[in-house]
């Protein structure tokens, strides 16, 4: 013990130096956006490649579940395909020919695999194995076949980091499907299987079992993507809003296949919003 103390006293200059530099770096990364981004990008590239290796091993243990999930999705898509009306040749004059596929497709889905995922902290993040090389950019939404997962926060060449839905700082605009009323979905930071719906007034008739889906009021997710099912409804003490809890449709504990949503119209939407001179800053 005395040797340890003697060592600390002997190297006090170096220790104080390291401490002061740590304070400076903390100030730097906390206050300067550019350095913060550079730090996060550097970290996500390095950590991503390590996580990818460990994920490759883990994949084999989850193959069965993933297969079932994908088979279920295939079945659902096949059903949708059956319902599609065949184009009748008689009404050729009404048939629209698309010159460019971009004209008709608003959302593009880029499949990706989750290589790192937290769900036990208050503000959780995840990482996927696709990055800027696969035209993924910050701000894109991420969904799985079961529902909303989150949105992309920062991108390196081969990996991207996203803010999970399980993050108390990541509100999402949602809609109560039967009534069409808009509200906000925000995780409460406690249970990875449930979340809260905010700003729903008591005049909306909400009952247990109603679906909560994404609203069309955002440029990140397509509309009507399932978020969860209502499990409990009660009026709060003031009678202003309803306290609604929902069971999330995505099981974050075994998240693996996800789709990144690329909104092809986002530039149009953003430029329209930015051009509006009356817009509040």
């Amino acid at each position: 013990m005395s040797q340890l103390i003697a060592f600390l006293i002997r190297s006090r200059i170096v220790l104080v130096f390291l401490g002061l530099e740590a304070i400076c770096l903390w100030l730097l990364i906390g206050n300067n956006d550019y350095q913060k981004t550079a730090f996060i990008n550097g970290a996500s590239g390095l950590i991503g490649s390590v996580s990818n290796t460990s994920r490759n091993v883990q994949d084999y243990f989850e193959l069965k579940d993933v297969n079932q999930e994908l088979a279920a999705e295939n079945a659902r898509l096949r059903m949708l395909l059956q319902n599609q009306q065949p184009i009748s040749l008689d009404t050729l004059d009404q048939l629209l020919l698309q010159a460019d596929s971009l004209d008709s497709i608003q959302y593009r889905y880029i499949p990706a695999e989750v290589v790192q995922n937290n769900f036990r902290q208050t503000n959780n993040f995840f990482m996927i194995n696709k990055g800027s090389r696969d035209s993924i950019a910050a701000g894109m939404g991420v969904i799985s076949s079961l529902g909303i997962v989150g949105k992309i926060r920062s991108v390196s060449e081969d990996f991207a980091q996203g803010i999970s839905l399980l993050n108390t700082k990541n509100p999402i605009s949602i809609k109560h499907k039967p009534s069409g009323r808009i509200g906000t979905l925000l995780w409460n930071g406690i249970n990875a299987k449930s979340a809260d719906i905010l700003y729903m007034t008591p005049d909306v008739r909400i009952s247990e079992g109603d679906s909560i889906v994404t609203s069309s009021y955002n440029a990140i997710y397509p509309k009507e993507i399932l978020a969860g099912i209502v499990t409990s409804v009660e009026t709060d003490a003031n009678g202003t809003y309803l306290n609604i809890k929902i069971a999330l449709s995505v099981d974050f504990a075994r998240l693996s296949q996800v789709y990144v949503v690329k909104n092809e119209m986002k530039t149009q939407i953003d430029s329209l919003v930015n051009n509006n001179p009356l817009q509040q800053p």
Partner: protein
Amino acid sequence: MNRSYSTIIISFLVILPLQVLVFRNFVLYGTGFNFFYLFCLLLLPVEMSAIVGMLIALATGLIVDLFYHTLGIHAAASVLLMFLRYYWLRINGPRSGYEVNQFPTIPNYGFTWYLTYALPLIFMHAVTVFLMEAGNVSLAGQSLLRGLITAIISFIFIVLTQYFFFKKAR
């Protein structure tokens, strides 16, 4: 001893406002900055303890950072400068040794000694600032060039100040 303290305090009071109000606006072709405020740190007494020196450097760097809108960069580089200075002064002592109560300046120890004392430290400081500002190593070439030019400009200003305002201690 009192006289040396007052000199240091006056130099801080004059040089820091000069740096953040005047020299901040002088940038040569986008590469040559002028970190004149390093003179205050280089002027601190030789026998001062390294920890006190680093704390002073932290405070100085933070004040400069507030005006440069780069909170943390100048502070980190200044702390590094004071840390290196402590060892550099011991390695690079003048032939006759340091005199007590004498500032490490050109009138006291000569130009050649001051060049080897100050220029490497200023260069390290400038390179640290520009590398941290760049945030990655892909701009390393540009950062080194900027560091070199900045170090030379700052050094010229620091040397001229000493010829104008400092006399040999008796």
